[in-house]
């Protein structure tokens, strides 16, 4: 019976073709900084940088816009990466002691939505190798790889191991040269007796090829011995009998000397003169941060310059007692000495210099340091070694991301002003040098429109990112902390350009300089940003935070000192018997504060009680902001600086919401659930064990216990939501609309608010001077002194009481109303005000369209009842056809708690496609998802990375570039390309459930794509009318509109709407 119903729908081939041209799901690019990086490499020929992560991903970056990813089959940390320079190949060493060879391949051309697209260059694994060793105990095995050295000729890989042996691997076939293996005994033989003393030399710590004489490599052993080994004669040319435990080695360019760094925090310079075989002492040996015990110098680089003394760069070496916990890197040249002080651990670093061997000097142009949480690049050619802003790999999480917001097609004027404000912020730190990593050629056309991604952070900052292309670039940073009086003075922000780092360096030793912007520590958690709304036409920004603060900001190009107006709105509205046990409200600054060019605060509204703001809406045309918390919502006129409305949404029984921050209640529930799960998990694993070895008595007893526990398993209560569920008053969404609330003939400003318990409040607003035609209508109301007024028009209680996720008003054609200013300034097609409007209310369980002004249900889709999933995020998106130039459709996109995307047409609410997008366990990913207006979206895959995805067949932002290789770049066979294509993600994901937008086969789990197949129960023959639209119009409407005439008028409207509705559905 069910199958019969499924077959009825989705057979229209015309529609299926259109769907294919509209919808296609792709995860396109990852923005931000890779989570838990573990390795770094650079190809000086191709100018490409590779970063390996603990999850087994290799991400390669070149010029901005050039980036690609390879993903190891196992989720094992990448410990080392080596490029085969110029070949587009690289070698990776994993934590499980395997070596993998990767190749750049050109993807086969593919077809998306009927349009041919060029293949994308991607990384593909072509081979792997692991050294033979005793299986099982690899960690202490002698053949555990410690270092890799790739000879310049690129045909031989030298592998240093824990056991002290050096193995040689032929490339690119990855075959071991058995006879060449250099074991420690061979080296020990040639050692003088007094040095040998019967001990092993320790693991190989460093392998370095002679810069001038090919075939000679420097081998450094942990105990301190360094050997210059000739590969052709298989004989030790020279021996350097170091006594200190070795950490790393580096050649000088000419090969006349090398530098070794040591465990005790010192480094030594050794001359390489062919006269003597045994060198007992280095030329110099220094402990830069001595004399007290220092930490090891883990890596050292020695670079010669044309202008004078060589540059020495090394990480670590800090005095153990006083600065042992700092993450430092020292740059030293002659007398100049800077200790870069990072906020996270140094993973690795390299310098960029000319790759040509003929040059006399290294002349490094830049230093690239990979830290655990960010990438820092230092310009080594400008005096003072300033840091360079990175065009990608930005640490999104420099303070934890608390919310995000996307603005598409930003007007050029606003863009320009933002860029200028951002430039002013960088101030002195900015160098004019271009980005030193320039590999590959970005072929992507510059995007026609600018896109902004705004992220709110825990420390009260809002960061503006250029999200137009593949590289997410920081534009501007706004801090809201200076509106308030906090414990620490807001002016000593470490990023503030005014505090010159050179000032403090004079006396301090070591000469620290704070570098990087990763700063996870928030001064005051109340500053955290919860909601952002930006009007791109009027340049008004509303930012709302954890302590009930709502700040209205305006864009200004001038620096300004002013006092911010403060208003307090009591949302409790003299409701008694409640106490707020949470945090206090933030204390506003009483003195005028200096505000830098950019967004400057105008008005501060503080909600009482100061609970976190849960919803915010801005209508710049009416000068109104609406904001909601867990207690109620308010409407504020920021032009006249007066509160228009405050409404408490608390249910009388709801005492939990009042207690304090939301998190307290939630976390209790969550922790209970988690602990239950943990118990359950442990029980399951315990049981398995008992099955394996059922003999032991103890285990039998355990099994019995487990059985007993089975009596109280994880269980869920089945109960309809009641009115007094806790947190029912939380305001979930707010929206402004110019629509018909009073009657079917006059439209006007309205405010809509939805709560956690399925209540929707609609207010009719009286906004003076809105719509010149109407003002004269009313007569006498046009004076500007008249205040905005709000009159409650409708109150809708959704029967299923699920939280209202989103409210949106649709115009007479069923299209969403344009944003403020868009209609009045002819920036968008004017909404249809002649036909009846409708309102789309999306709750966690159902999507429903009601007619206006008479609120009666027109269409609905009961998602939860069918799928068992709940709506988390909803957006109205315009999908343009990839094939037809001017065809587009408005679609409702729903992200559910299972991480899948459901697409519905509006206002028919007919399901279109479903895609699996986010793992359902990834709660923070689902919570962080934002949609763009044209079918793309972002969600956090780690605290520091956004995954960008596209649901549209047309609007896809993905890397498109070419790389010039020394070898021929062969396109992969078409069959393979599909496997590599969707994997351009640096994280392991469950690819199993990924529906690739194959619309020709409608996803069967979407049980009711047709409106008239509401339930699949055989009993529901009678229920067929359930979702059909015509009969639904009779609602329990409390309609007390004044006159009989009016009521009749409404009735007429209803009838018209009915006729209209069916019309829409037939289409």
């Amino acid at each position, binding site marked *: 019976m069910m199958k019969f119903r499924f077959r009825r729908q989705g057979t229209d081939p015309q529609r299926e073709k259109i769907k294919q041209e509209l919808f296609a799901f792709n995860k396109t690019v990852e923005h931000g900084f890779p989570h838990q990086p573990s390795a770094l490499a650079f190809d000086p020929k191709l100018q490409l940088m590779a970063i390996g992560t603990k999850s087994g991903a290799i991400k390669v970056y070149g010029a901005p816009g050039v980036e690609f990813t390879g993903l190891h089959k196992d989720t094992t940390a990448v410990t080392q990466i080596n490029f085969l320079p110029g070949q587009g190949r690289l070698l990776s060493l994993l934590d499980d002691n395997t070596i993998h060879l990767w190749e750049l391949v050109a993807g086969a051309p593919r077809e998306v939505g009927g349009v041919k697209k060029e293949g994308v260059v991607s990384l593909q694994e072509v081979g792997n190798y692991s050294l033979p060793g005793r299986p099982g105990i690899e960690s202490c095995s002698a053949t555990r790889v410690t270092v890799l050295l790739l000879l310049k000729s690129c045909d031989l890989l030298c592998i240093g191991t824990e056991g002290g042996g050096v193995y040689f691997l032929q490339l690119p076939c990855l075959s071991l040269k058995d006879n060449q293996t250099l074991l420690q005994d061979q080296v020990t033989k040639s050692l003088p007796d007094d040095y040998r003393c019967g001990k092993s030399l320790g693991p190989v710590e460093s392998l370095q090829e002679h810069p001038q004489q090919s075939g000679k490599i420097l081998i450094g052993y942990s105990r301190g011995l360094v050997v210059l080994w000739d590969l052709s004669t298989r004989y030790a040319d020279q021996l350097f009998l170091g006594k200190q435990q070795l950490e790393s080695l580096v050649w000088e360019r000419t090969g006349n000397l090398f530098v070794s760094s040591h465990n005790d925090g010192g480094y030594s310079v050794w001359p390489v003169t062919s006269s003597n075989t045994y060198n007992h002492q280095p030329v110099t040996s220094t402990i830069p941060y001595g004399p007290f015990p220092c930490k090891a110098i883990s890596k050292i680089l020695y670079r010669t310059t044309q202008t004078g003394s060589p540059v020495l760069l090394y990480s670590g070496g800090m005095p153990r007692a006083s600065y042992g916990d700092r993450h430092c890197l020292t740059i030293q040249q002659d007398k100049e000495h800077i200790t870069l002080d990072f906020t996270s651990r140094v993973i690795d670093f390299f310098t960029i210099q000319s790759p040509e061997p003929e040059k006399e000097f290294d002349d490094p142009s830049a230093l690239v340091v990979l830290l655990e949480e960010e990438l820092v690049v230092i310009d080594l050619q400008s005096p003072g070694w300033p840091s360079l802003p990175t065009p990608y790999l930005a640490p999104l999480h420099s303070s934890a991301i608390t919310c995000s917001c996307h603005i598409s097609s930003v007007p050029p004027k606003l863009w320009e002003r933002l860029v200028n404000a951002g430039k002013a912020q960088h101030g002195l730190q900015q160098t004019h040098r271009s980005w030193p990593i320039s590999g590959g050629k970005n072929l992507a056309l510059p995007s026609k429109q600018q896109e902004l991604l705004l992220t709110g952070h825990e420390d009260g900052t809002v960061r503006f990112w250029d999200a137009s292309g593949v590289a997410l670039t920081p534009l501007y940073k706004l801090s809201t902390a200076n509106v308030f009086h906090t414990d620490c003075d807001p002016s000593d922000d470490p990023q503030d350009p005014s505090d010159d780092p050179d000032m403090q360096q004079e006396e301090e030793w070591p000469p620290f300089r704070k570098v990087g912007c990763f700063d996870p520590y928030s001064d005051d958690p109340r500053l955290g940003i919860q909601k952002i709304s930006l009007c791109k036409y009027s340049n008004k920004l509303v930012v709302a935070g954890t302590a009930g603060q709502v700040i209205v900001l305006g864009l200004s190009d001038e620096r300004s000192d002013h006092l911010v107006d403060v208003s307090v709105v009591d949302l409790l509205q003299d409701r008694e018997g409640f106490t707020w046990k949470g945090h206090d409200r933030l204390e506003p600054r009483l003195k005028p504060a200096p505000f830098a060019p950019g967004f400057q605060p105008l008005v501060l509204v503080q909600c009482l009680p100061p609970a976190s703001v849960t919803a915010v809406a801005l209508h710049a045309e009416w000068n109104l902001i609406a904001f909601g918390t867990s207690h109620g919502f308010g409407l504020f006129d920021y032009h006249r600086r007066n509160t228009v409305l405050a409404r408490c949404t608390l249910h009388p029984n709801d005492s939990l919401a009042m207690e304090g921050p939301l998190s307290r209640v939630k976390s209790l529930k969550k922790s209970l659930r988690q602990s239950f799960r943990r118990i359950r998990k442990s029980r399951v694993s315990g049981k398995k064990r008992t099955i394996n070895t059922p003999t032991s008595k103890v285990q039998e007893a355990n099994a019995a216990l487990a059985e007993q526990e089975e009596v109280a398993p994880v269980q869920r209560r089945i109960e309809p939501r009641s009115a007094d569920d806790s947190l029912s008053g939380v305001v979930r969404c707010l929206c402004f609309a110019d629509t018909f609330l009073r009657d079917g003939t006059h439209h006007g400003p309205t405010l809509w608010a939805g709560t956690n318990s399925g209540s929707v409040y609609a207010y*009719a607003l009286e906004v003076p001077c809105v719509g010149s035609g109407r003002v004269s209508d009313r007569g006498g109301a046009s004076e500007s002194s008249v205040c905005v007024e709000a009159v409650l028009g409708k109150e809708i209680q959704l029967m299923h009481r699920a939280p209202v996720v989103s409210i949106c008003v649709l115009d007479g054609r069923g299209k969403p109303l344009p944003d403020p200013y868009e209609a009045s300034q002819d920036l968008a097609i004017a909404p249809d005000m002649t036909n009846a409007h409708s309102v789309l209310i999306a709750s966690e369980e159902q999507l429903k369209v009601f007619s206006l002004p008479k609120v009666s249900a027109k269409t609905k889709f009961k998602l939860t009842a069918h799928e068992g999933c709940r709506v988390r995020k909803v957006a109205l998106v315009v999908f343009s056809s990839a094939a037809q130039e001017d065809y587009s459709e408005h679609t409702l996109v729903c992200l559910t708690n299972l991480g899948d995307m459901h697409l519905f047409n509006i206002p028919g609410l007919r399901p279109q496609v479903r895609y699996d997008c986010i793992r359902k366990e990834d709660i923070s990913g689902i919570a962080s998802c934002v949609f763009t207006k044209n079918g793309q979206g972002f969600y956090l895959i780690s605290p520091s990375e956004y995954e960008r995805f596209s649901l549209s067949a047309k609007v896809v932002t993905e890397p498109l570039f070419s790389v010039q290789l020394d070898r021929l770049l062969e396109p992969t066979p078409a069959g393979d390309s599909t496997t590599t294509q969707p994997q351009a993600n640096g994280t392991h994901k469950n690819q199993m459930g990924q529906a690739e937008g194959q619309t020709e086969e409608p996803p069967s789990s979407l049980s009711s794509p047709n409106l008239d197949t509401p339930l699949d*129960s055989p009993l529901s023959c009678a229920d067929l009318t359930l979702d059909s639209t015509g009969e639904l119009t009779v609602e329990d409407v409390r309609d007390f509109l004044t006159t009989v005439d009016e009521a009749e008028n409404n009735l007429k409207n209803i009838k018209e709407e009915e006729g209209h509705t069916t019309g829409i559905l037939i289409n």
Partner: protein
Amino acid sequence: MVLPALLQPNSRLGSRMSKQQHYRTPLRLPDNVVEVKSKFEAEYRRFALKRNSPGDFQEFYRLLQTIHHIPGVDVLLGYADVHGDLLPINNDDNFLKAVSLASPLLRIIISKKEDEPGVFATNSLQRRKKGLGLTGLRTTVSGSAHSKNKPGLMIGLPQNFRQISSIIDVDILPETHRRVRLHKHGTNKPLGFYIRDGVSVRVTPQGVEKVPGVFISRLVRGGLAESTGLLGVNDEILEVNGIDVTGKSLDQVTDMMVANSHNLIVTVKPANQRNNVVHRGSKTSVGNCGSVGSVGSTGSTLSHDSPSPASQSNPITASNSIAEGDSDNEDDDRDLILENDCLTPFDSHHITNSNNTNLYDRDSPTSILHSTTVRTPLPQSISLPNSVGASLSDNSTTMSTLNGNTASSSHENMREDGNIITL
């Protein structure tokens, strides 16, 4: 018709309690006479009725009022049946039933209506008796069938009768499965069950295989699920409102059930397969094959073949259940929409804020429902949203002409019935 009117005036109960025991020697009455002992508050009256022609309910009601000297006092009548259950007498049918079952004594318990509405429940009488110390009376009642630690089911007053559950689709389901519909409208009772993960054994062509399944883990005492007797602990849940739950997580199934909670249809494979419905060839309808009322079906869970005693005795109930069956699809989605009468059309003068908020106080949301209920002749139907819905659709013209001047009394009514919540 009435034989000796007063057998024993018993006004000084406390002191004469022990003495009473002696009087209680059973009187050997002729077979055509039923001995009646009625109790109102602390007073007892004894009299007899003719077994063959006891009269109708109204007569009996008036008789009791006279005997107890309480003319004009609204009372509820109850009698103790052979199982010790206190059952109501409120119409001719159950009066006749009570008389016919009396052996030898018909015990009537009268309570004032304005008191806590008479709790009719199984076993309730025994508890009450204990309280009064009238343990001797137990000899006439065969209460041994009930174990003492298991209190009986609660039985509502007849006017609250409504269908709360039904077994459906008997003819198309395998015998091992049961499809149960729970009606959660109008009641304040919780659905009252919990579900859990578990392992289900399926027989496949490949042999027996274990698959994850969802099971009922617990029934809440006094909840809807328990009171129907149709669902039991460890029953496997196969479908929720017609949607297969295979492959769905416990949380998903929970969400589905909660989303359908107003009209929940679960298909279960009962853990106890002994009470399965036997197929009847004559049954053809796909709709409600049987209905289980909340009263009178203490042990009989499956009374699908004959009309349940409740609906038989109460025409209102019967008609209601029909109405429910018909209009279920409609009322599952009745969102409550309140419109503000102060929200004037554009051309008229707008009213100030303060005025409006007064009218819009949460405590006085007046809905069209109130007004319809006022004119409805049967006050019983207030509790039935669908009947209201039906009347709504019938006279949709009236609803729009209402002007919010509904009486506050009807509003009170509304609250008590809990309709505000369940709409």
